[in-house]
């Protein structure tokens, strides 16, 4: 997100009183984002159990974090979630977005249906899925010995499946949002481009690959950035559905941070994990912006 505003600032013609206009936002940002972040960095080199006094710990939290198998596992899980949710969500939301961009009335109706998950709170989604997938009373269990026997698995209790269950639910929740992005992206493509393509004899599929997809390039970058950085913050759904279990199978980095801080009462190490999360989020979003050429954003409709 930072990348977008930075690039916008570069492009905008100078003049007026930009600093003054930005002041309220900067103040809010400083008060509620930067200041807490400074505290987190300070806490990450301190020892605090949440009750007593805060004392200096030096690099103890960091060396413990470095050697902790649990945190390393959490980091690996987070990377897995990041990759899998991108691989699953991007094609689905891209296709859905392109489909929904059509002006037909039935598509507008379907769009309303598809966007329902977006309107539900994460807690409600997680609770609903936890009950649907309950190993004894869930909906999936009623499919046993039927044609869908394959679905009657212990989705939340099986350590090999549970991560994918979580990725599925997260995707179910966020695909509508990304579809919305793509829908808006597609609608901005000038109709003249398609006309030109049709005159040149391009089929629908060719139009998709040679007009729609290239034109959606920046939408893809935006959506991917949101997805990848967003997967560093997946907490509520996972926490309610599995609590990080069974064992450590779904203890993603944000969960590891919460459990270390609020269940083991080790706020120092939890803050160290938080710093890792912030650094990873910044690195990913800056990296994506840099390598995708997003910061050199130019009009793509030249010649249209």
């Amino acid at each position, binding site marked *: 997100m930072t990348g977008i505003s930075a690039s916008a600032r570069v492009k905008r013609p100078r003049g007026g009183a930009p600093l003054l206009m930005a002041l309220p936002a900067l103040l809010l940002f400083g008060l509620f984002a930067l200041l807490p972040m400074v505290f987190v960095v300070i806490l990450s080199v301190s020892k605090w159990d949440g009750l007593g006094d805060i004392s200096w710990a030096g690099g103890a939290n960091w060396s413990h974090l470095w050697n902790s198998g649990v945190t390393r596992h959490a980091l690996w899980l987070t990377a897995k979630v990041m990759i899998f949710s991108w691989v699953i969500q991007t094609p689905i939301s891209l296709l859905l977005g392109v489909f929904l961009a059509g002006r037909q009335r039935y598509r507008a109706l379907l769009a309303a249906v598809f966007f329902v998950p977006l309107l539900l709170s994460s807690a409600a989604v997680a609770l609903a899925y936890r009950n649907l997938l309950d190993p004894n009373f869930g909906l999936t269990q009623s499919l046993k010995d039927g044609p869908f026997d394959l679905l009657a698995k212990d989705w939340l209790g099986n350590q090999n499946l549970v991560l994918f269950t979580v990725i599925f639910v997260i995707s179910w929740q966020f695909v509508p949002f990304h579809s919305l992005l793509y829908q808006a992206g597609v609608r901005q493509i000038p109709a003249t481009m398609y006309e030109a393509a049709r005159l040149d004899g391009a089929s629908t599929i060719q139009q998709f690959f040679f007009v729609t997809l290239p034109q959606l390039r920046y939408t893809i970058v935006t959506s991917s950035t949101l997805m990848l950085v967003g997967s560093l913050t997946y907490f509520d759904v996972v926490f309610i559905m599995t609590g990080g279990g069974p064992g450590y199978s779904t203890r993603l980095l944000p969960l590891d941070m919460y459990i270390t801080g609020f269940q083991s*009462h080790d706020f120092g190490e939890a803050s160290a994990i938080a710093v890792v999360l912030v650094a990873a989020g910044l690195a990913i979003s800056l990296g994506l912006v840099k390598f995708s050429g997003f910061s050199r954003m130019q009009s793509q409709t030249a010649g249209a």
Partner: protein
Amino acid sequence: MIVFSRKKATLGAALGAVTLFAAACGSSGPSGSGGGGGASAWALTGGSQSTFQVSQKNWNAANAKDKVSYQFYANDAYKQKVRVAIGANDAPVLFENWGGGSLKDYANAGKLEALTPSLTAAVKAKYLPSVVNVASFGGQLYGVPINGTQPVVLYYNKDLFAKVGAQPPKTWDDLMALVPKFKAAGIAPLSLAGGSKWPDLMYLEYLVDRIGGPTVFQNIVDGKPGAWSDPAVIKAGQMIHQLVSAGAFANGYQSITYDAGQSSALLYTGKAAMQLMGSWDYAVIQAAQSDFVKSGKLAWTNFPTVTGGQGDPADIVGNPANYFSVTKSSTAVEKASAEKYLKDGVMDGAYVDDLLKNGNVPPVNGLESKLAAAPNAPWLTYQYDLVKNAPSYQLSWDQALSSSAGDSLLTNLDQLFLKKITPQQFAQNMSKVGK
């Protein structure tokens, strides 16, 4: 000039908005109970919730100046919530707790108000000593028991036992022999809310006590070196693995949580034959399906003995009681209201009767005659005798230990139940955590 003043106005408005926003954030603490007097209280859902609600209504009607206002929270998230609130000096006046090591953490950090001498004397005269002791540290009393004593017992479904023609297990070998019998009948032998983790602990607590007696855990609490590697702990771990390997636990036990009610539902819907659980489960089942209790299908027994074990078969584990403690951050007026309620409101006649009605045994002296006359008399008398005759009443380990050790214990135990670690690794991991 006009431009300048407009700029200034915008700036002023923006700054004003920021300060307002900040102020709004700062004043949203939960501690206020409205007005000067009265006491806010945090308590757990389920179990004794209905008793608290009745007590609140009765007390507030008679004591307009010293009102109590309860707020209820689900068990699993409650401990974190309390800890954060107390750490931030933003806690309610009264909060429900389990006594033991986690309460001692708060007392040591100076977050609790010790009860006044007069209240202490009144509490000591009213309640069973073994229960009062759990909330007293360094000669000071920090909590008043507020609900029934909660021993852990083995509940079972009588119908299912009749169906396979089995008797409730008296020894560990009986229990192991029952596992294939129930499985053959398509019934899960044991229901376990493994997703909540603390129900796992009941097996470890009982097995360690049956094998090695209460001294094994006392050594752990005292922080003696090698206490976690005691042969009794290792053997208990092996026996747990034995149960898991035999497939004794209900399908998907790793993801069943207790708060959601599924583990108890397995028992009363006839899907699982037994559940090891605290005495509060009786009230939970009664609330969920009273017919199951009324028709006498719900039965209970002691945890099986282990052949050759040193522990007394009459030993029990569980929670001697839950307690209300007074936080130091409350105002003097609030504290006074709270103490008044603790002295005269908690465990008055109607309160005790209401606990009894819901199948709880209040840990107060001289209750025998009331028990026999109460509804649910067999269950109440069983519990009272169990507690009265127990040579050792071990507080749940996660509460007896400091909260950071308690949490590592639950995580490592989860790994043990998943067979991800061996009993030896479990002992090693726990030794590293200390007490």
